[in-house]
């Protein structure tokens, strides 16, 4: 399909689309369904990614890449929104891994903060897997089992990461 035509169809459809959660990938018009998902989930995914990697520009890159992956695999996916989140989280973990390579040269966060937030900063300093688990648990409100699925590990391991993260945060953030 011509991409301009696809974009036009997406914009025309704005007023009659359904929430992303009920998007049916087998719908007759997968391009339209994708556009719906894209418009509803772009900002939430950028926010999630930013909480994980600290940089808005990097978060946008990761989100766009994730949407590209979802688009290519659209018909294979039972839950495009879930796969999108999984892809965003995995790419954020890759970015954190890559950042570890460049340790010693931290990139200044590009998030504009109105006020310093010591707790958010402490979360940013957690080891990568603990940080991801904390964000998925307390920002995305996922269950332990859902976090384990996203992170490709066992629920018990997630519990362990969360336990350690909370212990560390309690240590750094005394009441």
């Amino acid at each position, binding site marked *: 399909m011509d991409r301009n035509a696809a974009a036009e169809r997406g914009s025309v459809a704005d007023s009659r689309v359904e929430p992303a959660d009920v998007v049916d990938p087998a719908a007759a018009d997968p391009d339209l369904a*994708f556009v719906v998902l*894209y418009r509803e989930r772009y900002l939430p995914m950028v926010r999630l990614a930013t909480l994980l990697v600290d940089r808005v520009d990097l978060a*946008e890159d990761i989100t766009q890449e994730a949407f590209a992956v979802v688009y290519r695999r659209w*018909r294979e996916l039972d839950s495009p929104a879930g796969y999108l989140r999984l892809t965003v989280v995995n790419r954020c973990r890759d970015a954190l891994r890559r950042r570890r390579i460049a*340790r010693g040269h931290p990139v200044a966060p590009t998030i504009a903060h109105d006020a310093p*937030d010591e707790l958010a900063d402490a*979360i940013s300093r957690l080891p990568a897997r603990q940080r991801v688990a904390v964000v998925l648990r307390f920002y995305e409100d996922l269950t332990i089992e859902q976090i384990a699925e996203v992170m490709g590990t066992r629920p018990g391991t997630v519990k362990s990461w969360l336990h*350690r993260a909370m212990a560390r945060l309690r240590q750094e953030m005394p*009441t």
Partner: protein
Amino acid sequence: MTTDLEDRIRISLRRRADAIDVTVPEPVLGPLGSPGRSRRVELAAIAAALVLFVGAALLVAAAGRHGSETVTGSSRTPGGSGPAQPVIGELGRAVDPGALVSMPAPWSLDSFTFLSETSVIQERSSALDGSERGVVPPAAFVEYRFGDGRRSVQLDFYALGTRQPQVTTADPPLVTVRGTTGWYLDYGNGRYRVQWDEGGRTWEVDGHGFASLDEVVAVLATIEWQDDATWAAGAPADLVSALAGRVDGSVSWSAAGGVAG
């Protein structure tokens, strides 16, 4: 039971997330192919690519048997077929020779990161238990960050096929850059991303502080490929030493902090 700390974490994360507001670019679907393309078609495409790759490798090998090419001069003109292999191995062979570039004054190198595909990253399981595991990155990665005091250009090199065109962009989505067609995305506020394939690899640029796309394209046209010796002569000495000493490792350098990693 919900603890006070858990509530504080929820509030803190929500507040930080809510402070992030970005413009959602228009989606562009065409370049990625139709969703739902069958697995069989994808496999056929991969098979065709493999055949082409093997064929190209055989041609290169045949050319090599008929005499080696000598590179002279300080820079090479980028072209569709990629750079010739450098004849001077000052940097070892880990860094993709096609990823050795520079920018003319007033641009200067602010940071450089090289991640070898054979390097093993030690990923620490947690700060408390100290366990580690080795992680091998999927492909070599080179990133430059140049600056001229007002603008910045971050240039990443990827192996062809490992970096898909981005799904979103402004209108028009295509741009002619360095004699070829690429994609661009206008984030607003002087930030542009441009991506194109050149010399057998994907170039991706994230530029900040630019007045227009034309200005970005004009600046990108000044990027020069260089051979090992020329690149090494112009690069920071500690970076060159680190690259030569860690052929299969990873190196990160910044103007502010020198070599790390």
